[in-house]
């Protein structure tokens, strides 16, 4: 079974530039999550999709961050314009139906963003 795929693995940009990250979840997984992990901290949920609808985006800085999940499969997270404090690893995860009764989160390897 293929895992959660993310790209790019690494990205370096200057502040005020834009960047986009892509995630392809495990086939059949209805729920997709984007987390931001700043160095030395635990992951923070940015946005959660159930199929192609948003379940929770309360911690997404909507003035600069956007995300979409077209057709309920893969997803793109965009940052525009980037700030220095956006330097982090962006983790994508998926789960079968978002409920704890089915099991766990499956994580991709992450996309590491450095903003200069």
């Amino acid at each position, binding site marked *: 079974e293929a895992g*959660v795929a993310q790209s790019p693995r690494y990205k370096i940009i200057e502040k005020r530039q834009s960047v986009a990250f892509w995630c392809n979840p495990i086939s059949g997984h209805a*729920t997709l*999550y984007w987390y931001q992990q700043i160095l030395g*901290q*635990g*992951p923070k*949920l940015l946005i*959660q999709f*159930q199929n192609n609808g948003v*379940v*929770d985006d309360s911690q997404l800085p909507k003035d600069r961050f956007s995300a979409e999940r077209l057709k309920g499969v893969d997803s793109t997270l965009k940052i525009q314009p980037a700030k220095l404090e956006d330097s982090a690893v962006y*983790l994508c*995860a998926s*789960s079968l*139906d*978002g*409920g*704890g*009764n089915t*099991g*766990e*989160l*499956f*994580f*991709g*390897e*992450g996309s*590491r963003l450095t903003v200069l």
Partner: protein
Amino acid sequence: AQSVTQPDIHITVSEGASLELRCNYSYGATPYLFWYVQSPGQGLQLLLKYFSGDTLVQGIKGFEAEFKRSQSSFNLRKPSVHWSDAAEYFCLLTAYTGNQFYFGTGTSLTVIP
């Protein structure tokens, strides 16, 4: 409100020594609990999970964890640590009816020869 606490930010153990990482949770009903490991530069990998039944659960890489409802704890243990176990460890909680996962702040493990 649901929450997860990992009291130890950083732990150092000698290779071959035993390990226990603490996890305490706050939740009004029976939680679903997980331990994940994150090696440097990698995503998070599931070590083990507790849903119901036997309160002692076995995971991969020789890890085990014990759910103690009376203490609201789900501590991770390993009898003999290997150098490759050096990583960040996260405890997570979710609810049966929910679709949110609550992370602890993580415990960084260093293994010395």
